[in-house]
């Protein structure tokens, strides 16, 4: 009993001391503090995000705390991170949520305390649960590579044989948006835009899943080539799966005359564009997402301005560029050198 009360006493004392020192620090420097919470800190995409946030925070004199889940899907650590941020008096939180639904109540509690919460890269469900979402327009990313492939083929696009290498069976939104964007850009009726695989255009040989890695890309490409050896256009969910698909084509002696398109714009992926493995890839900008996020928090701290959405979208589009060595008319693109300059990872 005595021990318990002693413990409570000392904890309370520590909390008070902590609060005092925190207030002291704020009074001293009028420093705005912000938090960056990512899914993990091992994925190159999030590493780049952290770089962007850190650099911008330094520039604006904001003190930045970074947190990350242990693995992708580690929801509990993210909840604790948000609670810690709110307790520490942060003005804003940049968040890439691992569990986009389950995190919502915690986010709402933070916003009720006057903290600006911006979802980066991954929208929450519902998207309105955050003050703003800074993300890549994945549908547009897909549309660009689809339009590029169609323009590159020219008249041959009318009887193309297309392999669709998707993410996984559960059809997460990022995979659906890129897939349906690609088909739209290519000029194919997508039927229900909220799922892939329901199209009946004879040019689509089939869909298969890759888990977004090289091994999956290799196997999926093999499966689809089995169905039709004459495939000449390959859509891939990301660049590692594109690299796997290329290995399959190479082992069948089919690497010439097949267009592979992809999305991401990571450095190994852009190098694959340079090497002719991938024809074109849509590049996204994690660094920009984070630095714009820090700017938005600074504005919020200054005069309470909230960031606005890109017209026509329910989020702020941080931009996507088509990277290719062979530009085509009507599809804006950047060259390989610029792509390498702006790549992440």
């Amino acid at each position, binding site marked *: 009993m005595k021990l318990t009360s002693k413990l409570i006493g000392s904890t309370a004392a520590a909390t008070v001391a902590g609060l005092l020192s925190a207030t002291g620090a704020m009074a001293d420097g009028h420093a705005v503090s912000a938090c960056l919470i990512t899914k993990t800190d091992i994925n190159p995409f999030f590493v780049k995000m952290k770089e962007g946030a850190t650099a911008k925070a330094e520039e604006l004199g904001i003190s930045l705390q970074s947190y990350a889940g242990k693995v992708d899907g580690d929801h509990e650590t993210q909840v604790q991170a948000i609670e810690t941020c709110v307790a520490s008096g942060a003005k804003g939180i940049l968040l890439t949520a691992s569990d986009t639904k389950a995190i919502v109540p915690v986010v709402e509690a933070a916003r009720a305390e006057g903290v600006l919460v911006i979802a980066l890269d991954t929208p929450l469900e519902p998207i309105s649960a955050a003050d703003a979402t800074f993300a890549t327009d994945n549908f547009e990313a897909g549309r660009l590579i689809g339009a590029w492939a169609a323009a590159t083929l020219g008249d041959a696009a009318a009887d193309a044989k297309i392999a669709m290498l998707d993410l996984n069976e559960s059809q997460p939104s990022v995979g659906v948006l890129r897939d349906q964007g690609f088909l739209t850009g290519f000029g194919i009726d997508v039927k229900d835009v909220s799922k892939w695989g329901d199209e009946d255009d004879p040019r689509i040989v089939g869909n298969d899943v890759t888990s977004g890695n090289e*091994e999956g890309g290799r196997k999926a490409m093999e499966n689809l080539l089995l169905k039709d050896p004459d495939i000449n256009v390959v859509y891939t969910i990301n660049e590692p799966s594109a690299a*796997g698909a290329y*290995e399959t084509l190479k082992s069948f002696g089919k690497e010439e005359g097949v267009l592979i398109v992809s999305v991401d714009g990571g450095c190994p992926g852009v190098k694959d564009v340079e090497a002719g493995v991938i024809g074109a890839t849509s590049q996204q900008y994690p660094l920009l997402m984070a630095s714009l996020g820090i700017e938005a928090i600074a504005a919020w701290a200054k005069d309470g301005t909230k960031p606005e959405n890109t017209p026509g979208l329910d989020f702020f589009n941080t931009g996507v560029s088509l990277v290719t060595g062979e530009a085509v008319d009507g599809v804006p693109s950047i060259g390989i050198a610029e792509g390498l300059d702006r790549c992440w990872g």
Partner: protein
Amino acid sequence: MADNFEAELDSSDTSVAEFEGHRSLLDKFQHFLHANPAMVPVIILAVSIVGFGLVAGERFFSPFTLGLIMQQVAIVGILACAQTLVILTAGIDLSVGAVMVLSYVVMGNLGVTYGMPAGFAIIIGILVGMACGMLNGVLVTRLKLPPFIVTLGSWRIFLASVFLYTGSQSIRSQDIDAEAPALKFFGGKVTFIDDLIGFNANITYGVVLMLVIFLVFWYLLTNTAWGRAVYAVGDDKDAAELAGIRSDRILVSVYVVAGFICGIAAWAAIGRVGSVSPSSFQEANLESIAAVVIGGTSLFGGRGAILGSLFGALIVGVFAAGLRLAGADPQWVLFASGCLIILAVSIDQWIRRVSV
């Protein structure tokens, strides 16, 4: 009086007690399978090849397709060999896939990034695999923890090590070609038949490696003292110890050998995938367990044939390719592989209930 009372016996019925009635064809089949459990996966494999041949047509029967299925199952097949050893000891190894990935990222990093001669890089990678197996084995025997718990933990530890070590960055195929092409040795292939659908039928060295590994371990399990001891420890550890087998040593050796096989699989996986990919093979552990179970090895230890796991892996491959060729969506392939596992175990249970 010399009455020969026993003379009467000669005229008595000499037959012994037996069951009445003759066995049905199904009973005979059940008895045959009970006596030859390894035949179950062979029969399933044969039936599924014929079945899919009928559904998907001549394209399925082509040497190209059958060669491709072998390539697709090679890595999981090799891992299933390691998994079989562990399961025969009544254990389970959830970490095989992660051990393999850890081994090959070490090989790739040393061979490509640091420019070490490929031979050394491969040997060190295999040693890393064996060290992982050793860790599992020591935790199972010294701390007496259940293998499921040990490998559930070590799986995550190895996987996290992979991500921390590589930053989740793949090593590109072109960079391997430039720096250490020997890492991709098992991706090399022999072409043996021109094919009717426009592709040549290929057998990669990786497929040959899988077959060799299965034959070697089939020999070791059936013809050496070590092999008999593995079965004995899995069947009844206490009885094995009473018979003079030092079961802890056998268990550690099994985990180390499993780690060694994972290391070999790692080398083959670089050839198969073409690049060194930290994010690949996330489900290889479960796929290897599926192959072993479909192959008829009992999860309770001491019973099963290692060649069954080879057929188990092939059955999964035939189903996946057959369904895809027949036009099924990937979701249905996943669904079918689940049904296959339950079917295989049900058949196994039915055979065990045989009345002798």
